[in-house]
């Protein structure tokens, strides 16, 4: 096969042909809203992938617009003809990563390997970095980034992130199970996630307690690992597959009704595990079974009674996690839960469904673009003057903290995970 035929094969060309270029997805796309160019719209990107597959533009022409895509997939539910943008994006990232890999220097390769193969899936390392981060808050951050060779991407973002990075709890948890008082409604395997469990360990703990308070048996198994989402979105598909297999195997051994998590992004990766495999692959049905069981905590709590004890007299708004809404299709459940909290006054903000610009590690790699998107979001949020912004994903959570900090609203607005607020109202700590 010549080079072009290979490209035609590797890029999701057939999916691009399904796009009728109606433009119905334009209003849903945060990068289109922010940059105002068709080049940064879903329709534009799909066309560019098509053009690359047909050999009319080069991969270098394609790279910029695809890199700036948040992968939030808000364009999918907006599409009247069901174009599978996720697949198109993924195929483009795979092809681009492969091309870059060929061009990468040895040092860059080593760095990437270090991050994706070793650091992210490894909790101990993350713990180390986590506790380190606290330290670096007092040190000169430039110094740190120069040392680890990140100077090209990190300084400015790090300086800003440093302000909002939550206190890291490095204490290890005993892996165990929590039993409810009555006979359990569901038997739940809890998924902690690696970044979440480093930066927001408390939220995981509260999640498990809430589930138990709502009548579930909650089991924490030690065999679980990273969901692989960041790898997948960065074109490290092989690694993503191996992590997926690991998790599928780990949870299969137990008879859980559901595998529950409180992380919009990880949950989205897991409900799509089967898509990592060919339909003929023997892993496909196993992955599908696992994916069916993976649920966001709001999906479960929405079906159960929560023992509310306190009133929370606050005005709140909700920033939906894109991956929770667009991929896991969990949209109404978090809002219903918020509205159930005694005393709460919930106000949706304009364009609430639009991504906050966090998107995995987007806000680090594309700092400037991400901040432009965040500004748009904060403008809409500030208008309704909430006291609390509720999120459902650690990435969004950090981004909201950053937004509040940048607007100088630190004393007026709090950013919390939905689970934290529910726990507060149930007097769980």
């Amino acid at each position: 096969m010549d080079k072009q035929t290979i490209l035609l094969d590797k890029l999701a060309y057939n999916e691009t042909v399904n796009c009728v270029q109606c433009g119905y997805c334009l209003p849903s796309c945060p990068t289109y809203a922010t940059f105002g160019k068709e080049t940064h719209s879903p329709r534009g990107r799909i066309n560019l992938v098509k053009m690359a597959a047909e050999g009319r533009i080069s991969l270098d022409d394609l790279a910029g617009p695809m890199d700036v895509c948040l992968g939030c997939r808000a364009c999918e539910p907006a599409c009247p003809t069901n174009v599978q943008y996720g697949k198109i994006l993924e195929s483009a990232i795979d092809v681009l990563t492969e091309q870059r890999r060929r061009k990468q220097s040895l040092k860059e390769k080593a760095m990437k390997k270090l991050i994706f193969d070793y650091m992210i899936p490894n909790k101990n390392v993350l713990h180390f970095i986590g506790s380190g981060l606290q330290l670096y808050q007092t040190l000169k951050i430039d110094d740190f980034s120069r040392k680890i060779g990140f100077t090209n991407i990190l300084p400015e973002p790090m300086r800003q992130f440093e302000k909002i990075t939550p206190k890291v709890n490095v204490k290890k948890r005993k892996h165990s199970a929590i039993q409810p008082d009555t006979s359990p409604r569901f038997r739940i395997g809890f998924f902690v996630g690696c970044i979440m469990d480093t930066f927001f360990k408390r939220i995981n703990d509260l999640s498990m307690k809430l589930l138990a308070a709502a009548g579930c048996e909650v089991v924490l198994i030690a065999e679980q690992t990273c969901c692989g989402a960041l790898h997948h979105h960065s074109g490290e598909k092989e690694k993503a597959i191996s992590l997926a297999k690991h998790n599928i195997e780990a949870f299969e051994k137990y008879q859980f009704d559901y595998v529950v998590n409180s992380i919009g992004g990880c949950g989205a990766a897991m409900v799509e595990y089967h898509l990592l495999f060919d339909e003929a692959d023997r892993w496909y049905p196993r992955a599908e079974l696992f994916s069916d069981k993976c649920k966001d905590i709001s999906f479960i709590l929405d079906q159960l009674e929560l023992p509310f004890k306190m009133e929370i007299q606050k005005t709140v708004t909700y920033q939906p996690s894109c991956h929770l809404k667009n991929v896991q299709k969990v949209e109404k459940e978090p809002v219903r839960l918020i509205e159930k909290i005694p005393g709460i006054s919930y106000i949706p903000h304009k364009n609430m469904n639009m991504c906050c610009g966090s998107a995995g590690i987007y806000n680090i790699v594309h700092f400037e673009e991400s901040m432009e998107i965040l500004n748009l979001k904060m403008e809409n949020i500030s208008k309704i003057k909430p006291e609390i912004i509720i999120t459902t994903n650690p990435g969004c959570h950090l981004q909201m903290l950053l937004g509040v900090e940048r607007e100088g609203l630190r004393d007026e607005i709090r950013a919390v995970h939905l689970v934290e607020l529910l726990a507060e109202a149930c007097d769980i700590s």
Partner: protein
Amino acid sequence: MATITEECLRNIEAIIVNKKRILQRREDLFSYSFDASFGTHLPELVLQPISTDEVVGVVKLANLYKIPLYPRGRGTSLSGGPLPVNGGIVLDFSLWKDKLIIDPDDSIAVVSPGVLTADINAKANEFGFMYPPDPSSAHVSTIGGNLAENSGGPRGLKYGVTKDYVIGLEVVTPEGEIIRTGGRTIKNVTGYDLTKLIVGSEGTLGIITEAILKLIPKPIATKTALVLFDDLVDSGHAISRILSSGILPSKMEIMDQACIIAVEEYKPLGLPTDVEAILLIELDGHPYSIEEEMKKVKSTCLAVGAREVIVAENDEEANELWKARKLVSPAIVKIKPTKISEDATVPRSKIPDMFKKLKEIKETHDINLVVFGHAGDGNLHPNIIADQRDTEEMKRVELAVEEIFKAAIELGGTLSGEHGIGIMKSPFMEMELGTKGLEMMKRIKMAWDPNNILNPGKVFPEPGQRLVLHNG
């Protein structure tokens, strides 16, 4: 093809100072090479003006250097309107949306060209008014595009189309002069009606830089019914009977059997697949009067042989009924990915004849053809579902489309009810207008645009031009 010289570019940079609004990268040019119809045509440059001064400057330069200019809203045209078929510069107006003023005392809206049509209606609603033209693309298309295409929608039956709501325009002429047409009054007979000439001129006679739109009071309530017909011809009779009984519904939409089957296969709603047509009827007005009118609609439909009339009791039920219509688009592209959406329109009384013709065309050319659309005003949407990668099939489709146009004209109708001519339908203009009719239009174009700068290659056919339905 004209080329944009370094000198010319420097002049442009003096007019559009913010370089972010001057796009010349390859990926940008490719991103403005298409619309919702067919074909890829690369511009040499894309500019995103946001003021009349910038437009004037660019148009004057274009005349100096003889560079074609292609105005573009959001590129949702179904006829190739904004495609830069001769290269040159695409003027993207989507960023120009700073003005959206509702003046309740004069019941008008004053808007910039890039404002989304749905936003105008939403803002008018806040003041108890409505902006009636409702193309289904209203939430993604610009008012500039709507004005240039004279777009319409389901509400056209009762309320008319875009041209019925424009009372004044600010226009930059093809030679770069600013003119104002009409004004803020509903009545205005001073001189030729240039407002109406510009509306529907598809960006060939002037660039619309501001529009004054008429608003009307928003009806208090709506009521919807879904009617099932065993026989398509009966549905045609039902339409005529209702309209001659003193009732003017706000919407009357029809779906044929092929659509119903496609919807049921895509997302089962429980619609019977053995009926030949479904009619969706919406009434609007005072709750009491539409209650009474709905009774009459129901008895009229049953009298001409409808199988069943389902009336929605509340808005929620109404939304359920409309779901069937909304699912048509996603459902039919499941059959095959390429959708050729036509909008040939016939006099209302000829709807059953047109349906018969379409059935014949479908069979002779062995194509997938479904029909839905605005039955009340004869604006049917025959949609052909094909696969553009199948060149043999696309040839059959091209022949079928030609026959659809012929059929519509023979029945006393028109090539296009709302999507415009662009490049898609220009080869058929003479068939409808006659040689002289077309020539008078050309003379207008030549008088307004002596250098043929604005949207060249559109509306008027090039010698020997034929219908082409593939990307290339």
